């Protein structure tokens, strides 16, 4: 389980993976102590997260507007979801969005983090702050800025590129380019946070490990593979899962940039949940759709956890 970096092995124990929490002791006392620590958070989570979730689960088996009378319909809402071509299309779009966003956001954030965590980089604090800026801008405002850049008639980017004889076209209204453009803006918006998480993770890696590896004659790539990656594995697993969850729930960025268009090319599961819940007052369908999304997310996350543990074993060998 521990990493193989020579002498340092005795000083430092690699973090455990999710699947392998090491027992410190046994007994009721331990559980009680844990409960004391968990009590405040669990109270909040059970009351304000779990109970509304269960209410939504119940609603998914009803025909319900949320306020009027309800009728039990069994699995009819779930059946309807998979028969509605627009909803099926939204599911496909969500998968495409997640498949584009998750790897791009994680890789970009990791690469940038390696650069700005590098001690040789002058002004790295300032650069980090600048790269973090997109994360602290509210999305509605960011959408304006991107519109100002990308608008096919009035946009700055088009105006500049026109001088070079390049015509960008209406990227946000192009059936093929709309989705990648939305992903691009979403990556721009969120990579700064993932970057900071990676930087924090990188800083937890004792410097002595790198130095020991260097003494052993390991090159930069080898040091990345045998020191950085194994010790960053917990962070990486966390960022991947979190980016995946965020991607599968893509809503705001789409709502402000394309409203699901053109011709539903950027409609996602959550835009459809919003549409059926808040515009059509069909909370039964909205809830059922949410649970389909939850099921898919859970499945993908568990796969990711499994991959994370395997990665750890591979890297440790």
């Amino acid at each position, binding site marked *: 389980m521990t990493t193989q970096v020579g002498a340092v092995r005795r000083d430092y124990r690699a973090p455990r993976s999710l699947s392998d929490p090491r027992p410190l002791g046994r007994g009721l006392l331990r559980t009680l102590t844990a409960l004391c620590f968990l009590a405040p958070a669990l109270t909040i989570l059970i009351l304000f997260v779990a109970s509304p979730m269960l209410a939504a689960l119940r609603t998914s088996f009803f025909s319900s507007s*949320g306020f009027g009378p309800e009728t039990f319909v069994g699995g009819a809402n779930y059946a309807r979801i998979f028969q509605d071509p627009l909803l099926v299309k939204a599911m496909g779009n969500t998968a495409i969005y997640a498949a584009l966003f998750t790897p791009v956001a994680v890789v970009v954030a990791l690469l940038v983090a390696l650069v700005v965590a590098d001690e040789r980089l002058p002004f790295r604090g300032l650069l980090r702050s600048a790269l973090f800026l997109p994360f602290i801008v509210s999305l509605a405002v960011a959408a304006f800025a991107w519109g100002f850049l990308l608008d*096919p008639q009035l946009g700055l980017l088009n105006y500049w590129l026109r001088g070079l004889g390049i015509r960008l076209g209406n990227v946000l209204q192009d059936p093929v380019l709309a989705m990648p453009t939305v992903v691009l803006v979403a990556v721009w918006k969120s990579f700064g946070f993932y970057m900071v998480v990676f930087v924090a993770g990188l800083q937890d890696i004792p410097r002595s490990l790198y130095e020991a590896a260097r003494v052993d004659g390991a090159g930069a790539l080898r040091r990345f593979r045998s020191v950085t990656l194994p010790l960053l594995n917990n962070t990486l697993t966390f960022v991947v899962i979190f980016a995946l969850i965020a991607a599968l729930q893509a809503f705001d960025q789409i709502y402000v940039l394309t409203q699901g268009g053109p011709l539903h090319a950027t409609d996602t599961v959550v835009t459809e949940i919003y549409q059926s819940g808040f515009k059509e007052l069909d909370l039964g369908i909205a809830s059922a759709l949410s649970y389909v999304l939850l099921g898919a997310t859970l499945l993908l996350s568990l796969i990711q956890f499994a991959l994370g543990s395997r990665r750890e074993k591979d890297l440790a060998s």
Partner: protein
Amino acid sequence: MKRTVAAALALGVGLAAALTGCAASDAGGSGSGKTTLTFWHGYTADDGKKLNKIIDEFNASQSKVTVKYSVKTWQVIGDSLLPALAAKKAPQIVALPAEQLPVYAGKNAFADLGDYYSSSSAAKSIKPEAVTMEEVGGKKYGVPTGFVPLSVVYNKKMFDAAGITSFPKTWDEWLAAAKKLTVDENGDGTPEQYGLALPDRQTVGNGVWASLFYGNGGAIEKNGKAVLDSAANVETLTYWANAVTKDKISPTGLDGIKSDNLFASGKAAMEVGGPWMVAVAAGNKIDAGMAAIPAGPKAQAASAIGVSMGITSTATAAEKKAAETFFDYFYSKKVAAEWSLGSGWPPLTTNVAESAVSSNPTVATLTALADRARPLLPGVIKSSDVLSAVDDATQRALGGEDPAAALKASQLLVQSALSAK
């Protein structure tokens, strides 16, 4: 560290206690014979200030009813009304875009106002075409706070430069003017100035295409049946799609907001818009005029932008009565004229003489046009699905697809939205 944690804990507990204390102030209610009502509306600009002033004056004018207003954008009202209804904490009066009324009414969120319409003399003075937007399944679930026909705003300077002296009266004249106003200086096929900003989806009040369909005798639906793929509509869509794709009078891929921006930036000479566009243009240093949408081959008509207010069905009988007292005040002759001038929209009642609003030229123009305005999809519960299907068709056609096929595909969607319960 020890001290930090202790401080955080103390702060947390203190905060929680303080916050719970704050919540007590939400009481309200109807003690001592006085009824307090909450009213959500989405008038955020000067019109909102005027409406709030009218409400304040109403509160001062009598001692039985107090109306408390809460201003949210129309979008936010749409997002907050459902949770509030579900928690039985909805405001007693809610204003919302008229085409959204049926979906709420269909789920019994609003009270039937039939008895109000039959008993109140003020209600009888409301213009009948505005009242049609309140009808769902033969019952009336709201009263109008706004009803205005879409019209064309135009850039006066560009009209002068092109030598167009009078505003076009027919589609052919309109198209000719738009072509004349489209300027491609460097001849690269992309005009620097467009004659018209014609959006292909999410148009202002969702009414641009409805207005054009009406002009050629078509419609989106008739008595619950989809008529989107009628020959008249195919003709209409072909006519305007050609104007955009072949004559390039407008860029493609615009929505309502984008076409407003294009007009306000002086890149487009005309757009179909609401009455506020003249003021918006003025803010952008553009001198804009307003005119009726030119007549189509069959009719001169325009889709109306409508706003309705309803009384939520959770309101008690006393609260409903109190709300109706406010409505009576709102539709009284003096207040109706005041609201028309303040909102920049035509008066809602027949008892306001045209001369009473002539001080505002925009309102005067719109008032003259008001009788040609048609409500958008009155009584259609799934209006959002219908409108999204219409947007699909117009987007396809302006994107170069066959208009007849595009309308045919959307016809099915419209019909299934209309037949769904």
